[in-house]
């Protein structure tokens, strides 16, 4: 049981670390890495609970769930990176002389200050 708790507990700690980093850091890449770390934490928990003592065979179901989860996480990460790279392209193309920025900042704190402005944004 100690082994499961250490492994699964490490997963919970990873989840918490990822959550903290996601909320605190603004650059998109850090947020994306934080989300992947959170996901890895949850996968750790699944792997830890697959083995519940030597009397029982290891449970293949959580293993399969983790494999499915990894593919889902890879897909989501790929799409997020592509959207981000599109944003950077848009940033660089109109003003090629502008200094390189550290990447778009996406605010995710549920603070009211992040309400979008209601400026007429339909015009390209």
């Amino acid at each position, binding site marked *: *049981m100690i082994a*499961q*708790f250490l492994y*699964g*507990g490490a997963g*919970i*700690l990873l*989840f*918490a670390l990822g*959550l*903290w980093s996601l*909320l*605190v*850091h*603004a650059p998109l890449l850090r947020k994306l890495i934080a989300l992947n770390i959170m996901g890895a934490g949850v996968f750790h*928990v699944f792997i830890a*609970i*697959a083995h*519940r*003592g030597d009397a*029982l*065979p*290891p*449970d*293949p*179901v959580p*293993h*399969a*769930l983790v*494999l*499915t989860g*990894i*593919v*889902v996480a*890879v*897909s*989501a990460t*790929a*799409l997020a990176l*592509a*959207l981000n*790279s*599109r944003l950077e392209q848009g940033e660089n193309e109109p003003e090629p002389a502008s200094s390189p920025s550290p990447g778009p900042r996406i605010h995710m*704190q549920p603070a009211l200050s992040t309400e979008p402005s209601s400026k007429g944004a339909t015009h390209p």
Partner: protein
Amino acid sequence: MNRDLSLLIGILVALLAVVLLWVFHSTLALDPGQRLASLAMERLPETGVSNPVTAVLLNYRAYDTLLELGVLLAALLGIWSLGPPRPGFQRAGPALAAMVDWVVPLAILTGGYLLWVGGHAPGGAFQAGALLGAAGVIMRLAGHANAGLPSETWQRWLVVLGAGVFTLTGLLLAFTGYGFLTYPPGQAKWLILLIETAATLAIGVTLAAAYVGGRPQPTAPPPPPLVTSASAEADR
């Protein structure tokens, strides 16, 4: 971000972690009770494969795996909708090119092995597909702008191959009276191998196409001139 606010978030998240750890610990101490493990092992001989994880992925919970192929496709379609890909990297030098000539066929061969071995040992469609995708990534890094992928028409058919064979098999089984994705006795092994082969190709092509990162172009753009700084490109 404001220092105080991030400290506050840190404290709250730490509290959450403590609660979760405590709950997890107290649950592990309980009797595991009824598990899926023994049932999954007991019925393993009927699944057509002897690797329990493959049995879960392609038989017990095949429906999840089908949708997971859908998720992969959704990501690729999203990437394609964002416009054409960026130009590829410059042509590899002789040392890298020689290595690529070795590594790519090896990756494809190993992928085939992993696909086959998945029936009775760790391996299977996703591992094999990941290797095919990696072969594509290596090719693009070495200057093949389209990562060795075929034309757009072929790419489109290949990326839907996995989910397509999967869904059609499922529906065919439903119409013949067995039920959606319920393999007839004795046929499971071959149906799973068929689905896995299609899925491997689809996953490999999808991953490589996602790495190329844009809608396939009718004709492969010529490689950029050698003056492009490799380090600037590698930053992407």
